[in-house]
């Protein structure tokens, strides 16, 4: 026999998802990146691309963050720090690997001092390719991740409005 659906639980669950999707706070950690991806992340957060319009806020402490934006291959020196930061985050937590190095190790693949991509060390929810990925790509990846939490009917549109003075080629996601 199926367990009885509790209406109250359903409501609370919906409310939690609503809150989670509308204010994902992100933590940014560089475990061996060249800083290219980090600069793109900053560009994504600042007013030109303005990820804050989706409620995304850069958070300095892992204890207050929902999403870990991880860039760069994981060096052996940084591995323990990355794992410690991941463990300090509260559930539910999501990890987005940003850039080629974070996905597979990139050009550092097979080097004596790197472990490889982020997923060699901690579980990853979304991968954003690029060297570095454009801010639109990062926004797209974050939106995809948030959409995966939402029921089919209430998805965030992937093509978000962009500022009027943005050049033609960046208006299409």
């Amino acid at each position, binding site marked *: 026999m199926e367990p009885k659906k509790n209406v109250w639980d359903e409501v609370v669950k919906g409310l939690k998802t609503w809150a989670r999707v509308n204010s994902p706070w992100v933590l940014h950690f560089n475990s061996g990146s060249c800083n290219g991806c980090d600069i793109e992340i900053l560009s994504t957060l600042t007013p030109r691309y303005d990820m804050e319009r989706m409620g995304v806020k850069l958070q300095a402490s892992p204890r207050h963050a929902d999403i870990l934006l991880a860039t760069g291959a994981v060096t*052996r*020196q940084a591995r323990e720090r990355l794992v410690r930061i991941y463990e300090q985050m509260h559930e539910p937590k999501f990890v987005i690997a940003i850039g080629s190095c974070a996905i597979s190790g990139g050009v550092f693949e*097979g*080097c*004596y*001092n790197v472990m490889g991509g982020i997923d060699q060390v901690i579980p990853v929810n979304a991968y954003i390719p690029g060297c570095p990925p454009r801010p639109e790509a990062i926004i797209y990846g974050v939106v995809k991740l948030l959409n995966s939490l939402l029921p089919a009917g209430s998805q965030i549109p992937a093509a978000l409005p962009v500022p009027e003075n943005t050049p033609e080629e960046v208006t299409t996601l």
Partner: protein
Amino acid sequence: MNSQEILTLAEAIVGAWDWATEVSHPRPNQIDVKVTHLNELVPIVVGLRVKRLGYLCAIVGLDLGPEVNEMEVLYHFCPGDVVIGLRVRIPRQGGAVPSLSEVIPSAEVFERELHEMFGIEITGLRNTERLYLPERWPEGVYPLRKDFDPASLAAHEGGV
């Protein structure tokens, strides 16, 4: 001093050790000195230093592979726009080079790196602790040697 004067002076200094060195000119602003007697390395460096040519910019290790079974250590001195390279050859196993840190204190950082990346013994080096490699890197594994296999680190997984 212009670069020609620096080169002339450097050759004159190294010329005092002509029985222990072989000098060549790979480029117009560079001289390359093979030091065949390892014990003469530090005196030559002192000689360069006294004439203010001892601006050490890098120490480079070079593993020539198991076939040759030798390693080379290159000391690059860069006064002005001139490069003075001293190179010594040592056996791959159990090779040792004298430390320059008594003459040039900042050489210690390069030498510690050389030691941990190539396993070359540096005689007279006071601090041989880990510098760049992770704390739990396995002993006796030297990543910049030709026969180093990155896959071998998997055996130490969770450790390295």
